């Protein structure tokens, strides 16, 4: 047993830190720190920097442009990224569709799609959930009917994140409705410019149009854009989920947020002449969150260690998803409570770079309630925490 990093790992940590300090653009960092929403160009510009360093896709095999890092190195890198506030590459390309393409796609598809994902030339989005297929995803009803060399796709996808920026969408579609629901699903790649696709934004309670509904009205998709076999899409989608598991617990980000919270609470007045960090109830809850973060970190390290000796990631990732999302949400709550009354103003325009008016509240206080509202999604998306518990019951406890 050895819980500490090796010398090589520490060296790598140093190298990663130096790279990020030097290369993460100051203007994007400013936006992240000031909670100014990032634009498409910010993501793309940053991902291209990572690409040039060869570090955009740690979870890809080396032959397709991956880093060849060990699980521990990936962990270190994620932690350094969180520390500096650098956004991870948009998940839909690098983490989601990329692995499906290099695992199940044919040669032509690999050559056609993978380089543009690595270079951030093409923005991908996801077409999984439907208005009536959420937790029960396999009951999806968007149809793809064969017509010569094409499929004709009809239906509606929802909770499509940042599709307004996307060039392509990967979709689960029904190609056979006579068989068991999991067995009639195919995996299609669809160009968003194809006639018949319409996006309607869904505004969330924090006021942002972060997600969309995507409507498909007789959309013609070449059969050549199907990944793997017809009706095998569910299998591919499940494999994709194991790749999504990298860093699913969000430990690095939670750790950094807790450190910042401590620093902020140490200079936030408690209203009685002292500071909030010394207020026993708040301090206690903050400590509980830190303890939970430590437990989760070691749960994740154990899982990583298992993967690094060749075991496939198992249902323990459900633990990481549940505990990680709930920890993040409890940190959201602590931030909101720290900000107290100043969590309540809704003044999104004051975060704009060129805002010249009277700023309401302190930087640290602003938008904490909005973050709390928005991040209730964390226990809903990616397989809701209820679904994760079902997985634990079935796959681990044998219930």
């Amino acid at each position, binding site marked *: 047993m050895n819980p500490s990093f090796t010398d090589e790992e520490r060296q790598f940590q140093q190298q990663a830190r130096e790279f990020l300090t030097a290369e993460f653009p100051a203007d994007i960092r400013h936006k992240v720190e000031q909670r100014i929403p990032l634009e498409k160009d910010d993501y793309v510009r940053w991902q291209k920097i990572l690409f040039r360093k060869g570090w955009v896709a740690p979870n890809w095999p080396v032959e397709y442009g991956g880093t060849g890092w060990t699980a521990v190195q990936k962990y270190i890198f994620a932690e350094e990224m969180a520390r500096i506030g650098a956004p991870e590459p948009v998940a839909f390309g690098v983490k989601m569709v990329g692995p499906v393409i290099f695992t199940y796609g044919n040669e032509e598809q690999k050559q056609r799609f993978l380089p543009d994902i690595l270079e951030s030339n093409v923005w991908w989005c996801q077409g999984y959930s439907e208005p009536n297929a959420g937790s*029960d995803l396999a009951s999806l009803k968007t149809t793809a009917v064969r017509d010569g060399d094409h499929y004709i796709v009809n239906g509606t996808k929802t909770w499509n994140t940042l599709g307004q920026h996307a060039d392509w969408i990967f979709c689960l579609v029904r190609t056979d409705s006579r068989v068991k629901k999991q067995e009639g699903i195919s995996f299609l790649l669809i160009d968003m410019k194809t006639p018949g696709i319409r996006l309607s934004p869904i505004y969330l*309670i924090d006021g942002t149009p972060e997600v969309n509904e995507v409507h498909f009205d007789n959309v013609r998709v070449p059969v050549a854009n199907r990944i793997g076999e017809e009706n095998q899409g569910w299998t591919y989608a499940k494999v994709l989920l194991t790749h999504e598991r990298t860093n699913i617990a969000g430990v690095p980000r939670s750790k950094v947020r807790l450190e910042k919270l401590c620093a902020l609470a140490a200079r936030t007045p408690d209203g*009685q002449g002292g500071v909030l960090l010394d207020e026993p109830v708040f301090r206690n809850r903050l400590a509980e969150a830190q303890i939970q973060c430590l437990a989760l970190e070691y749960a994740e390290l154990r899982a990583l260690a298992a993967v690094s000796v060749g075991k496939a990631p198992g249902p323990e990732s459900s633990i990481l998803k549940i505990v990680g999302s709930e920890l993040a949400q409890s940190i959201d709550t602590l931030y909101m409570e720290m900000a107290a009354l100043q969590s309540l103003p809704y003044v999104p325009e004051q975060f704009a770079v060129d805002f010249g008016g009277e700023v309401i509240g302190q930087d640290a206080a602003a938008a904490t309630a909005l973050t709390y509202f928005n991040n*209730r999604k964390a226990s809903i998306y990616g397989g809701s925490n209820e679904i994760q518990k079902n997985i634990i019951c079935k796959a681990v406890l044998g219930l």
Partner: protein
Amino acid sequence: MDFSFSEEQQMLQESVQKFVQRHYSFEARRAIVASEAGYSPQHWDLFAELGWLMVPFREEDGGFGARATDLMVLMEAFGHAMVVEPFIPTAVLGGGLIAALGSAAQKDAMLGKIMEGSVQIAAGLYEEGSRFNLTNVQTRVQSRGEDYVLDGSKILVLNGSNADQLLVSARTAGEPCDAEGISLFLIDANSAGVHRYGYPTVDGHRAAQIRLDGVKVPASALLGPVGGCLPALEQAVDRAALCLSAEAVGAMDALLQKTVEYSKTRKQFGAPLSAFQALQHRMANMFIECQLARSIVLMAAMKLDSDIGAAEKAKAVSAAKSRVGRAIRLVGQEAVQLHGGIGITDELDVGHLFKRITAIETLFGNTDFHTRRFASL
């Protein structure tokens, strides 16, 4: 023992419910929230016409009796529909302070206008570093001849941008956090040196940050005894906190009702969500929280209407605000979680109810603050 509503309370409840049904659909509310003022002056006139603006005032002041139980009935019905009209800032807090502390002349000048709906009031009581501590007042006062000059800054002044009159706490003696030395001033919101930065709050209400920059006011602007306003201030804020707690009871009830309904219609895995026992139990927990919140608010309202001492009343309100705050976290989060993604969309009322009760948890002292205050009293 009798917990049933009086005939008058039933009528009050029915009249609010009727108003809400007729005028306060979720879509109608959305339009009001998006309007310039952020509330409906027409509705405000109707509140006056229906006598609701008299509810916070004693009969000798021309009011309806100033019973906390009546306010509870009214606010709970408001909570169901997320009414955004500034009833608490103007009628409960502002009006309550003037009724409690005002001279005969001040009461004559203001109370009638409040009840007929022709004046809006906002109370600036919190400052950047004060958190929820009403004694932590750094706004300074200097005497200049017959006049006073005020300098300071107030945060999250509810209804601050729409108010005609501002009530501000200021320190005429002592150090921040001293109980003595706090005075109240009733000033024209458009006085020279008053800078108001209005904004919407995350729950669709309106507030303002207010800077007082050498604001010169006559001695007649003083409300209540110089340096001795804290007791009345605490009582008025407690009333507002109780009103908010009652509003939360109504809003949580709506959330529970909507969640139960949704669970019966939303089908996944071939069955309605309501068929899954794990989810049934979570709705049972929401119900328990709603009932406890309702119970403790009733307790506090009845105590405020009794003739027990001030400390005991304060303790009852802190108990209610603290316990309701705990219920708010569970009911709000579970309502959203059980709805899934749709629960955090702007389109559905559930997310808006969630935001409103979350704001209520913070306003006039959050759960931690009131738990601590309960223990200290």
